[in-house]
């Protein structure tokens, strides 16, 4: 039970990290025209245009914060999903299986996302 209390505290802490970093991500990617936040989209046009993606990819700040956001969001989301599934009272065996599946898929996606952040940083340089 103590372990669940610690995990819940990490869930809340991850939520605060997500709030800051996803807020920044949303501002750059989805509110850039309204908020005139165009300095991180130096090529103009859409934030998803390759020139802008490559320009951001060159800055060390982005791969570091991407990996931080990725870790926090994967933990927050998958732990939240685990809590929802556990509330439906699955048996002990099913609970273990759910935990293993979520941990393995979370780690797999963390590896994929981290590789992509590091490789695109190398590519952009």
């Amino acid at each position: 039970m103590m372990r669940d209390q610690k995990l819940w505290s990490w869930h809340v802490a991850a939520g605060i990290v997500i709030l800051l970093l996803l807020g920044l991500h949303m501002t750059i990617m989805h509110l850039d025209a309204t908020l005139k936040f165009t300095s991180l989209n130096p090529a103009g046009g859409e934030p998803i245009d390759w020139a802008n993606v490559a320009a951001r990819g060159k800055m060390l700040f982005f791969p570091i914060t991407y990996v931080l956001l990725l870790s926090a969001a994967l933990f927050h989301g998958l732990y939240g999903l685990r809590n929802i599934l556990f509330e439906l009272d699955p048996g002990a065996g099913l609970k273990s299986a759910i935990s293993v599946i979520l941990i393995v898929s979370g780690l797999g996606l963390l590896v994929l996302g981290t590789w992509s952040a590091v490789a695109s940083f190398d590519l952009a340089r």
Partner: protein
Amino acid sequence: MLRVQGFPNRLGVRGWVGGGRWGMERYLYTLHRLTGLGLLAYFLLHIVVTASRALGEGAWARAMDTVSGGVFKVGEYLVFAAFAFHAANGIRLVLVELGFGVGRPIEPVYPYKTSLDAQRSLAIGALAAGAALAILGAVELLVLR
């Protein structure tokens, strides 16, 4: 040693939908879960799709072409609106978890007041902040682009 015992969830998923006498905060709880599940589904796909940038400009352009068009534009806005609500309501939940905005302890004297009465303004504030952000997103994603 203090042992915390959970209660069996007899209502299952149906318990999410019916708020009973719990009021508005219970429906915010349901909406927080639904938006959370939607955001998680989107996020897992987003990791896979945006990983293509590591393979260069051509792979990135193909990935972005796959997820462009009217349906994806509306979907992108729905994700933004879900984020706006989940973030604003999440701030409210963290504040309540830390004991802010729940009111001071009072004697149980009739007519009874509950902590939820004290929390209502926080809930309304969270909804207003989420709605304002969602409107800002609608202007950018559906009007300006």
